[in-house]
């Protein structure tokens, strides 16, 4: 019951956040100069009558608040409008082509990020001050200090380039859909995954190490040891659960950061997904597409945050869902 109430509350507040974001995006990007938009769509030969007709049909001649109202109305009905740039294609078509590419980058990147980050962090904490811990700490610092795009460029230089020169073409840049086979797909995705995961994995290694070390100092862990439990059971059954809570709460904040990483990674490796599309739309001044990208990204953030909060409650029984 409380779970249902929690979900309803979070979804409602998520809708409020989305509305705020949509409003912000609309007023930031509304067409300041309808003539340029009409010229883009109508082509060079368009007469001023045609331009006026295009402007009228897009509703760009109406007062701003009316435009805003129309924008909200059609967005709620799932209509993302038409692109001002690529020949008036519906934005939803453009977006649906990009989604699998971005999803491919995200899924693999997040899996590597969490698996590597958490396991290195846990191993470091249980072997505090060992050689492994020290090298991990150094590795974390280097990982943290590498801007995503620099890491991507360096990987191109030291992995992609030599391999290709020696005739190994499995690792590639660009994108191949899953339908061409998992192996081909992974070959295109492996560099973006590693690039995206490394910086974040470093953050999570540090976070989980610190958190687990703190938890290992708690009274209840001492109690567990005093009961005579094996060290393995103390760490993995008792301490880890409590230690993961701050890690999960950080996860909620980092989803926005992750999206930034995706934009950069897609640009470095020419994946041509949502992130690269967003950059292109922004340079082209393709307003409806920009707003669509912003809305998709924000929806993703809101949903992911709800998932994170649920995880939080599952992990830590002290947290009441409220």
């Amino acid at each position, binding site marked *: 019951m409380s779970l249902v109430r929690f979900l309803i509350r979070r979804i409602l507040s998520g809708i409020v956040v989305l509305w705020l974001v949509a409003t912000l995006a609309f007023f930031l990007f509304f067409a300041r100069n309808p003539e340029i938009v009409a010229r883009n769509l109508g082509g060079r030969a368009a007469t001023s009558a045609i331009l006026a007709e295009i402007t009228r049909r897009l509703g760009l001649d109406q007062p701003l608040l009316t435009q805003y109202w129309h924008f909200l109305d059609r967005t709620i009905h799932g209509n993302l409008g038409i692109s001002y740039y690529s020949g008036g294609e519906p934005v939803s078509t453009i977006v649906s082509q990009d989604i699998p590419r971005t999803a491919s980058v995200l899924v693999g990147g997040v899996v590597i990020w969490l698996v590597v980050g958490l396991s290195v962090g846990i191993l470091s904490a249980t072997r505090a001050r060992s050689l492994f811990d020290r090298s991990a700490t150094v590795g974390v610092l280097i990982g943290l200090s590498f801007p995503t795009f620099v890491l991507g460029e360096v990987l191109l230089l030291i992995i992609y380039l030599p391999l290709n020169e020696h005739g190994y073409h499995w690792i590639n840049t660009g994108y191949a859909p899953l339908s061409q086979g998992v192996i081909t797909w992974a070959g295109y995705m492996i560099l973006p995954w590693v690039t995206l995961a490394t910086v974040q994995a470093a953050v999570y290694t540090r976070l989980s190490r610190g958190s687990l070390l703190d938890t290992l100092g708690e009274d209840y862990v001492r109690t567990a040891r005093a009961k005579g439990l094996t060290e393995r059971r103390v760490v993995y059954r008792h301490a880890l659960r409590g230690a993961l809570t701050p890690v999960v709460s*950080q996860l909620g904040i980092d989803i926005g950061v992750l999206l930034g990483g995706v934009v950069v990674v897609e640009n470095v490796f020419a994946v041509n997904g949502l992130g690269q599309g967003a950059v292109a739309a922004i340079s082209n001044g393709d307003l409806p597409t920009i707003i669509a990208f912003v809305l998709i990204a924000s929806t993703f953030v809101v949903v992911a945050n709800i998932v994170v909060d649920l995880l939080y409650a599952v992990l830590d029984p002290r947290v009441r869902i409220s």
Partner: protein
Amino acid sequence: MSISELEFQAKSVEETPGLAIEGRSQWWLTWRRLRRDKLAVAAMIVIVLIALCAILAPVFASLTGHGPAQVFPNIGVTADGLPVGPGATFWLGTDNLGHDLFVRIMYGAQVSLFVGVVTTLIATAAGVSIGLISGYFGGWVDGILARVVDSVLAFPYIILALSLAVVFGPSLTIVIAVISFFSWAGIARVVRGQTLSLKEKEYIEAARSLGSGPWRIMFIDILPNLMAPVLVLATLNIPAAIVFEATLDYLGLGVQPPTASWGNILADAQSFYQEAWWFLVFPALALVITTVAFNLLGDGVRDAMDPRTERVFAAGRGRKRRKLAKPGGGPSSQYPDPPRQPSPGGV
């Protein structure tokens, strides 16, 4: 002078001996611990050297005789129009237009350090003020501010950054505004959490009963107690801001050529990494060394300020002892247990 101020002074005079020793020794201890941290000292030296490079960039330029935006179409580019490798004339080689890469990297340090420090100052001032107000007043003020903080943290920052750069045209001012805008929220969240717990302390109640107003309590009574986490956050914000700036430049939305910045050099370098490794490697090294140094320093400051890290290591050592059948606490008694404060977010 009002009674409350008199009493305030009287109180502080009364406590002066104790306070002076305590107060000085805390910062002094921090400094001493920081100095003992070899990595942090090395990081400080590296940062000073990088700052010198930035300040002395014009000197290096005159030393080599190559201006930062000066193009050498004849000797700076090969016959195929490719960058020239490192050598006696161009110490670190040239870029695709025939600029001296060494001089441009030196000038790039100016942009990175300037943006890193300025945005951190703005973000810290804003974050601390908003965090204090949110945490101290609570109620609907806190409700609204917390929503704003959440929205800023959750907003896909790169998209807003890119859009602002396009709406207003890319420039250093926009870069600084964008980075500051996205940096204050994290600091505000931590400060708010700390303020929430500090405002329940007895000495705040004492200050209130003496007639101190909310602003005085926030900035005179609470703020000094927040300096440690704020300083750590600020130090760690600098490398993040430098990376952010370089990323915006890389995406073509920050500092524009011919002004040299590490980010825009690296953006150009990506088209030439197959032919000219130096074009990519040297600016990347400059950027990474700088961020590593600031991160190391930030870590050092955190460790030096937070006695808890000491306790954690002490506990670790204690555990090993226990295995050797030697019960009892480690040497943790050297530092008394700090008051347990909630640490919201990952400091």
